[in-house]
């Protein structure tokens, strides 16, 4: 095993992180530079994303559950709309909703409830006790989950479009890209915030997770234009990133559809997503700091073995 290093870094070249770790005085080991702190947080992000990405390749059964089953769900609505002879635009709305719902499910199941699960596994204490920011862990979870969700979303989109012959009429590709990225940042910002809150609420987290799926699907207009819900739809656009992101994407993918009237234009919805990203990310940081303070004060949030 390694030996301690007599260098102090004073009056000579600055110590590398490895030299600092093996310094001959704990006060030197503990004295990190801003760069070392930032690098550690970045490494922690990659480290936490690693099990998710590894899991994707190690257990490919998820391909069936994450692609085939959602495709069936989407197909059911497509067939119903066609049986009712609804306008063909509805098929496109359903396909787009089915694809984007992958990200919402990932946020709810693999982010919001995740810290609570980490606690029950005994991981959370180790996260708290490590010298990284807990935000890195949350971002790592998001990044890892994003890989799986993106695959599911792309597969559902492509397969459904091919099978049901959906014609997207995108005129502003750059805006589609911007809205998509902003939707993800707002969604995962909300996910990080919810992870802290779910941890705080303990057992109720499970019920909250359920509440966050079907009701949110409904008010966000997963399978129909959210504008049809009137004031409820507008409230959803103002508060739920999935609702506003989905509506903006639909408007950009089907710019000539009259069925999408009644909601703000995509440019405005992009701005709403920017605000949501800032608010949710800041709230997540605040919640995480508060949760840690409460955990240390009450001894009730992270302690598993006592």
């Amino acid at each position, binding site marked *: 095993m390694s030996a301690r290093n007599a260098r102090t870094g004073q009056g000579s070249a600055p110590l590398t992180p490895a030299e600092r770790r093996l310094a001959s005085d704990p006060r030197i080991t503990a004295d990190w530079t801003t760069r070392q702190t930032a690098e550690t947080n970045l490494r922690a992000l990659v480290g936490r994303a690693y099990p998710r990405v590894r899991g994707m390749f190690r257990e490919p059964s998820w391909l069936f559950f994450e692609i085939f089953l959602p495709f069936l769900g989407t197909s059911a609505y497509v067939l119903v709309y066609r049986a009712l002879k609804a306008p063909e635009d509805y098929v496109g709305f359903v396909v787009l909703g089915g694809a984007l719902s992958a990200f919402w499910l990932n946020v709810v*199941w693999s982010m919001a409830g995740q810290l609570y699960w980490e606690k029950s596994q005994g991981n959370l204490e180790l996260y708290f*006790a490590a010298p990284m920011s807990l935000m890195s862990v949350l971002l790592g979870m998001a990044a890892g989950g994003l890989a799986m969700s993106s695959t599911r979303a792309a597969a559902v989109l492509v397969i459904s479009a091919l099978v049901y012959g959906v014609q997207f009429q995108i005129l502003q590709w750059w805006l589609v890209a911007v809205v998509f990225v902003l939707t993800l940042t707002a969604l995962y910002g909300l996910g990080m915030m919810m992870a802290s809150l779910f941890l705080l609420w303990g057992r109720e987290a499970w019920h909250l997770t359920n509440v966050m799926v079907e009701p949110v699907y409904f008010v966000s207009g997963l399978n129909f234009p959210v504008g049809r819900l009137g004031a409820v739809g507008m409230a959803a656009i103002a508060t739920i990133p999935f609702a506003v992101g989905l509506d903006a994407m639909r408007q950009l993918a089907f710019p000539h559809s009259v069925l999408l009237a009644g909601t703000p234009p995509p440019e405005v919805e992009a701005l709403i997503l920017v605000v949501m990203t800032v608010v949710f990310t800041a709230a997540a940081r605040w919640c995480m700091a508060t949760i840690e303070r409460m955990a240390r004060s009450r001894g009730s949030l992270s302690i598993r073995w006592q």
Partner: protein
Amino acid sequence: MTSATGGAHSLPLAIEVVGLRRVYDVKPKAVVALDGVDLEVAPGEFFGLLGPNGAGKTTLIKILTTLLLPSAGSARIFGFDVATETRRIRRIMNMVAGGEQSGYGILTVREQLWMFSQFYGLGTREGWARVDALIEAVGMGDQRLQRVSTLSTGQRQKMNMARGLLNDPWILFLDEPTLGLDVSAARGIRELVLAWKAAIPGRTVLLTTHYMAEADELCERIAIVDRGRILAIGTPAELKRRVQRDSIFRLEVDRLDGGPAALARLPGVVSAALASDTAPDAQDVTVNLVLREDAALGGVVTALAGVGSQIRSLGKSEPTLEDVFVKLVGRGLADNGDDDAPMPPSEADEDVAAAHAQAHDPETGG
């Protein structure tokens, strides 16, 4: 305050605790887990905390590892305050608990350790190299590519030990590290910790354990803790000298109505406690007796005959840490007390929700 141990220059005390108090605000009434603890551990020391469940050992470790705030008093790790300098402390310490199930079952041992190395900021290649070295050090070369979910309890604990050493900590907190392990696996863990500590001066270990023999073997000094207070501190030899003037007997009977407490009430009996090394499936009852003088033994034998207990064996023994413990605490570790650890609120009945959550998590891997 500083202290020099084994190094060329002086280092701050590894642990400095003054008037530490921790109260859990639980219903129906608050539980005092630590009640004015004072403690100093020098750099490079192997220090043990010995006490029954609910003594406050784990609470003390939680505070020292920055996971819990004290209600009053102060605690410092190598000069850093646990309440205000948490980041600095987390950069120089690590912790391992017995029965720990941390990590993700879907990863291999090597991958799991590398993931944790990233949390401590080790470079990517440096992390892999360190992981490989530690896997060899803990004797898990054959399991390095095995999934964590398939490891035995002993293998898992070895892996946890490797995790605890990833960042070359200045201070390592071990909370019952050999809990539930068989004799061979426990010995392996003890040898590993001793070898790691001996390799570099200044490495400090704080160990909590139920096992007297383990504390005796590993620790340079031991604090005996009960009901949130430190009852005695000293080297194992110093502690044993406290009972050297007493007469110590090991008594085996077929049954003992009223338990050891019935014997403890007899004249001349300092303490009587169930032996902690009694096998769980043993038919007979083994009791460690501490008497003021040998003559008190007659009263014990008469009393046992009076309640119909048959003596299987009776022998005089040298003082052990267990005798010291029983004399100070008033009962043995094997005795059931009313001192279950204070559980924080909202910990009960989490399993159902956790199981649901786990069912949706791709990382658990069975």
